[in-house]
């Protein structure tokens, strides 16, 4: 019998078990090649961000690949993780706290109290017109009170040297603490969202989560007292030494010289390696925990729920609770990745969170890698991120040389030369289509 396409193939176990290591080996080769062509440090940078992407992909994979939750609000949870980095690591702005910090806190408490009261009312009172009226009245009163208390505080805080601070600042704790904190923050938000929106299915859930992500970002962009809004927070402390300090340290320079490296290269490589270790530790932990969970009755239950919610419910599985649990866990993982990303960048720029980059690209990673398979998600994260950055120089190379092949000064030559950078997206698209063509269920399909 001749060859059969992969979709239909019930691949032999031997080939199956080899496939994953081979693909990872291939990925490694690609990265090493990149290192040779573009410099070791460039490759390290790409790997680091690729690993962060892999963590994001793991989070999405947990939600979609294993539980079938179509969350395209990834961007929002990433941003929350990033916010945690600011709230934890930036030094507090004492003038701002003095100006109106407590007022804002009080306002927030009042707001939260209103919500809690509303929920209690809803639970305690029987459904009726009266309940509706009471709830609306409480809601409006709460909102007005909330604004009355918080607004002057906000104005005062934002007036404190707006060009440099104009916000409350953070806790001034070590930035590494922001990573779990980012997870917690995202998890908390996910819990609230899940409580309301998880009743929705497929694309409806998708658009709801997207909407919530947009709302989270609107708050981040416009509430300057929180994290400076679109004015960005820059200079977030780093968990690793700064290159420039290393370059100035004689010890380090001496060490570097022993390896035959100059101080600049050595410092960059050292810093990136440190980052890599930290990220790998997180990635490893997340991977280990989710693999253990998935290879257990819990994982079986989750897959059963994904396959057929109705039947799972009839078999005594609490579908809503499981969905909520997974949504929260997945979002927490995404939040951690968000905090790591902001730490790597050293800045929080709410204006830069765009769905294309921070939601859909992550989805591409999961699907190309193979949804429902953690190794696939990791491979997808590495590969797609690699492509995302490499196609820019690549596209320029291809189109630049195409342009030179055209007759000098012709319309096409001009267009091609102009289009060089534009073609990054096109190249990305073509590669994506090719990968999915030859491996429609992803590179490392589920079992």
């Amino acid at each position, binding site marked *: 019998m001749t060859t059969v*396409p992969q*979709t239909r*193939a*019930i691949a032999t176990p031997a080939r199956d078990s080899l496939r994953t290591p081979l693909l990872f080996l291939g990925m490694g080769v690609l990265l090493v090649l990149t290192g040779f062509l573009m410099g070791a440090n460039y490759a390290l940078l790409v790997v680091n961000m690729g690993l962060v992407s892999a963590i994001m992909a793991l989070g999405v994979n947990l939600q979609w690949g294993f539980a079938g939750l179509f969350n395209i609000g990834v961007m929002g949870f990433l941003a929350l993780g990033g916010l945690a980095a600011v709230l934890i690591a930036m030094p507090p702005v004492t003038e701002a706290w003095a100006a109106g910090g407590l007022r804002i806190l009080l306002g927030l408490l009042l707001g939260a109290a209103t919500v809690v009261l509303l929920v209690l009312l809803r639970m305690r009172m029987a459904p009726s017109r009266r309940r509706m009226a009471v709830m609306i009245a409480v809601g409006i009163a709460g909102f007005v009170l909330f604004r009355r208390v918080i607004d002057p505080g906000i104005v005062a805080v934002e007036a404190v040297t707006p060009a440099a601070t104009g916000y409350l600042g953070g806790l001034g704790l070590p930035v590494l603490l922001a990573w779990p904190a980012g997870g917690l923050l995202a998890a908390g938000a996910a819990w609230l969202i899940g409580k309301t929106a998880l009743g929705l*299915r497929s694309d409806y859930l998708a658009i709801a989560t997207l909407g919530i992500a947009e709302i989270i970002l609107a708050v981040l962009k416009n509430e300057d007292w929180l994290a400076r809004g679109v004015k960005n927070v820059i200079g977030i402390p780093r968990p690793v030494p700064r290159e420039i300090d290393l370059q100035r340290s004689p010890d380090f320079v001496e060490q570097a010289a022993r390896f035959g490296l100059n101080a600049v290269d050595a410092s960059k490589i050292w810093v990136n390696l440190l980052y890599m270790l930290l990220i790998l530790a997180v990635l490893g932990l997340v991977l280990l925990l989710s693999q253990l969970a998935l290879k257990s009755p819990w994982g079986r239950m989750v897959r059963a729920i*994904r396959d057929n*919610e*109705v039947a799972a419910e009839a078999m005594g599985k609490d579908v809503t609770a499981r969905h909520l649990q997974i949504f929260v866990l997945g979002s927490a993982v995404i939040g951690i990745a968000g905090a790591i990303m902001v730490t790597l960048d050293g800045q929080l720029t709410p204006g830069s969170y765009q769905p294309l980059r921070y939601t859909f690209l992550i989805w591409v990673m999961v699907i190309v890698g193979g949804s429902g398979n953690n190794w696939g998600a990791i491979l997808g994260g590495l590969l797609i991120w690699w492509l995302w950055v490499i196609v820019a120089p690549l596209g320029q190379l291809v189109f630049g040389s195409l342009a030179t092949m055209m007759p000098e000064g012709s319309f096409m030559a001009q267009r091609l030369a102009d289009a060089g950078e534009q073609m990054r997206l096109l190249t990305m698209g073509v590669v994506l289509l090719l990968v999915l063509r030859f491996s429609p269920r992803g590179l490392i399909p589920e079992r």
Partner: protein
Amino acid sequence: MISEDPLRDDRGNRDLSITRPRDAIPMDPIVPTATQPATSVVNAFLVGEAMVGGYGRGPSILNGCTIAAEKGQIAVIVGPNGAGKSTAMKAIFGMLDLRQGSVRLNGEDITRLSPQDRVAKGMAFVPQTRNIFPSLTVQENLEMGAFLRKDDISRTMEQVYELFPILREKRRQPAGELSGGQRQQVAVGRALMTQPSVLMLDEPTAGVSPIVMDELFDRIIEIARTGITILMVEQNARQALEIADKGYVLVQGANAFSGTGKDLLADPQVRKSFLGG
């Protein structure tokens, strides 16, 4: 993913075999061998002969079984669950690639025709599962059955409604909202609308109440009398064999017994092992 309404969930689209991607498993050339059964059936109107086939690269489900039906006659396939009855039906209808064997209609070899082409040749099929269009209304379901017909379909539709009066009542309702038995009636009705020359039914009476089942069998006899060939799989085997001209017992993808319906009913071993005593 599963939607809110369990009844709406059987959108097709899961059975990969049906569309036969071009690069499906190529057939080995069919060389007549000594193991093939005697050619007594070769001249029947519809023949699936010495069929061997399975899903994807999996093991063979059909192991050389032969099914045949004469023009205007009723052939019934019975057998235990998983014997390959539905698979045999699919193979005859071209929804599964045969590894060996052939299918002939009216003397013509149709082994390599696609299901669509077989529909054009006058074959109609009611699959065992996912056999309705859930979001189309009952009436639209029936219309779709007559999709290829150019003539006036209102008379046939009237006949279907007479056969299954409940469908007339529900004709404006999406078929996905019907009860299990009602859906089965829609499925059979859809096939009747085709006015085929061969009608293939995979367990048409599953889930249908006794009174409707009797009506249905009556109607099948009538249809056969108009010269239409009928091939069906049944688990309500005793009733089915009673009206069958020809019966096949399939076990593990091979013919275990065959004969007229009466013969099989009379055979104590068949009764005990396959017809529930």
